[in-house]
């Protein structure tokens, strides 16, 4: 079992999350949806990247967003964070409408983009302090939260103050980006390929962190290509292909419902990844010739 109610009060790494239990006025109750997406569509010229996507997510849910390259996962997340304008449809996040109150949405969301982009000319600390200030977190509280996150990720404070982000390894940058996404203790968190670049220990710690965040009541969308991680971390999976939602439900239930041997089998069956053994054999044959 991934989560137990008994452990719901356990500390998470950045214990700054605890203060989120006092729910803001107007915020949805725990048994209601915090993310409600309706007919969300995005077209780039003639190409439809996301096609009439609709779903709801409740607080405390970790939803895996799966799909092959170019399926529309990142575009969906970018629309839900207010970075991209939807061509049609809308979404409501933590009581804020995406089209009429994008700033409210942005205040409620933490986002780890797959690019892991940072300002390379800043030190890690300068970057995190800047992000904290944008969310209106005072310097004292920000310093404390940063310190806790650094402890969680085993990042030395000297690295944070002496090195510019351009000199960080990919994994270190990713840790900074994850910290920046969680600093303001958002009720909704989107992770786009968050494990990219993280070492094994950090990845294991991160998976634990996700489960702890969910216990705290945060709604999480976790987009990734790594099926076994998604299967272990998420209690619900959505597979999209060519912008369309193919299936949505708990992983075990989905596998059983479609008569698949495993999630991998289900995924390849739904997204046109069958016959891989034959393709590999053909690929190898070209060298033999």
């Amino acid at each position, binding site marked *: 079992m991934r989560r137990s109610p008994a452990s719901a009060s356990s500390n998470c790494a950045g214990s700054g999350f605890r203060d989120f239990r006092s729910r803001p006025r107007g915020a949805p109750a725990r048994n209601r949806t915090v993310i409600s997406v309706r007919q969300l569509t995005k077209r780039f010229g003639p190409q439809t990247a996301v096609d009439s996507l609709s779903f709801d997510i409740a607080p405390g849910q970790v939803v895996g967003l799966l799909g092959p390259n170019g399926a529309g996962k990142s575009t969906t997340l*970018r629309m839900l964070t207010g970075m991209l304008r939807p061509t049609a449809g809308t979404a409501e996040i933590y009581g804020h409408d995406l089209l009429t109150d994008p*700033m409210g949405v942005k205040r409620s969301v933490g986002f780890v983009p797959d*690019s892991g*982009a*940072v300002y390379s000319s800043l030190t890690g600390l300068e970057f995190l302090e800047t992000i904290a*200030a944008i969310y209106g977190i005072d310097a004292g509280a920000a310093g404390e939260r940063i310190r806790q996150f650094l402890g969680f990720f085993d990042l030395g404070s000297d690295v944070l103050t*002496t090195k510019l982000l*351009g000199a960080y390894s990919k994994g270190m940058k990713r840790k900074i980006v994850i910290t920046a996404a969680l600093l303001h203790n958002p009720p909704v968190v989107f992770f786009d390929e968050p494990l990219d670049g993280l070492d094994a220990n950090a990845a294991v710690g991160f998976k634990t962190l996700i489960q702890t965040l969910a216990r705290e009541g945060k709604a999480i969308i976790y987009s990734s290509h790594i099926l076994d991680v998604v299967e272990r971390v998420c209690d619900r999976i959505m597979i999209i292909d060519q912008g369309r939602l193919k299936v949505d439900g708990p992983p075990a239930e989905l596998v059983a419902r479609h008569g698949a041997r495993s999630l991998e089998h289900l995924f390849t069956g739904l997204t046109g990844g069958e016959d891989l053994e034959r393709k590999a054999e053909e690929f190898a044959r070209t060298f033999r010739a």
Partner: protein
Amino acid sequence: MSRSTGHARTLRRLYLTLFLRGRSSRGLNLGRAPRSIASKLGINLLVYGLVGLTVLGGAGPELFPFALRLHTVALLFVCLFIVGSTGELLFNREESEILLHRPVEPAELLRAKVRVMVEVCLWLALSFNLAGLAVGSLGPGGRLAFLPAHLLSTALMAVFCCSVVVLLYQLCLRWLGRERVDNVMTGLQMLLILLVIVGAQVAPRMLEQGPRFTSVGPDSPLLLAFPPAWFAGLDAVLTGNFEAGALTLAGFAAAATLLVPWLALGRLAGTYQEGLQDGIESTTATHDRPRDGIRRLMRMPGLSWLLREPGRAAGFRLCAAYLARDRDTKLRFYPSIAPMLVIPVILLATTFSSEASELGLSFAAAYLATVPPLANNLLRFTQDWEASDTFRTTPMAGPGPLVHGARLAVSVLVVAPITLLMVVATLAMPATRGSLALLLPGILCLPLFSAAGGLMGPAIPLFRATEEARSASRGIWYFLMMMGAMILSGVGVAAWKFGIFAPFLVLETLTVAIGHRLLCRRIDALEWPAAE
């Protein structure tokens, strides 16, 4: 403190740090980056202050020409600085991924960026004008009122200068869209740099038939088309000159300083927001346009023969692609070589007497020969330097073929068009038409300079991180090459005058051929530098 005030303060600090720490500090330890913003700014201010001293030479007693000269040179330097550095600040591709999903309005970002630009411009302009302020207010013929008047006009000039650059980018954004703006950004920067340099060189000569303003008055109608004159007119009015010409110029200054920022920050602020979002769309959207221009170029007769060796072809393809497509390379490369390209043009444009035109023509072509080494050196650096491992792991004995390929790419894509342009310009001007042959000494030595540049570093293309793009030894190399170009042009003109130009060309060709062969052998023998 309100949220917007807090944002303004945070964003100002962020952009000031990014602006002053700059691209060159990427990837460095903080200890090797500029120690503090203040130290880097201090060095810049000192340099600008020293350059400002040079404007004082030959200053006359008349206040308007003096103020005009100060504003002309200050605007030139401030514009060059701002054009070269604001593209990245305004349109940082990664910024959308960092900030656009956070609760901050794009208009706040734009305001903070422009505020930082104006602040830096103001500091630079003031340090540049420091000596001028002292002379204009306390020197012989000076007036004390010049001090506050010139301070005000300089501040307005800084606001105007930044706003014009932002307005131009905004207009391009509106008319062309974000993706095309990214593609034409370097072209736009180069155009602005050329425009500013040529304007600052040509305008004084149009007004006075000489390089400096000494006697021009505010009543010249041509001055209305010359923005520094507006602010000099403001100086004149504020110090008590109420002539119609001065009042008109001052009116232009005031109107321009109000109108341009209003357009850039008010009317077109929405365009910036759309531009940021479109920036994400353009990275998400796919391109269905085939990119086969480089392949077609490589198949051209002659060039395909030169590129018959696969290593050379790889070097050429790589450099051509980065010169044409890579935003980071273009932003560093073209603004860096723009002054090198414009100086020959100015040399050509400002030769009035026959004797001066011969020397100017010869030097212009020889000066052009210094472009390939600079260009090849700039091409050593990229953000994608780690991809160079691809070549290290192939069975190539050394990087020589890549260096040759890079030299060819620079020659074909950068040097050849400029040489052609120079030939056309020479033929178009009556003073230089008859001396076209004087371009030959410079053109003939292009391969030699290019090969010499190939050894600098060595100039293996796209092998080093961008932040390493600073080297003291490079300056010495350029100085030596510049000296070589000057000597060559002097000898060429002497040979022309003494009627031994043809034997000189034969001798030069032989020398270049031998020197080029020797240098190429050294390039062929280059070994891969240590991977660490």
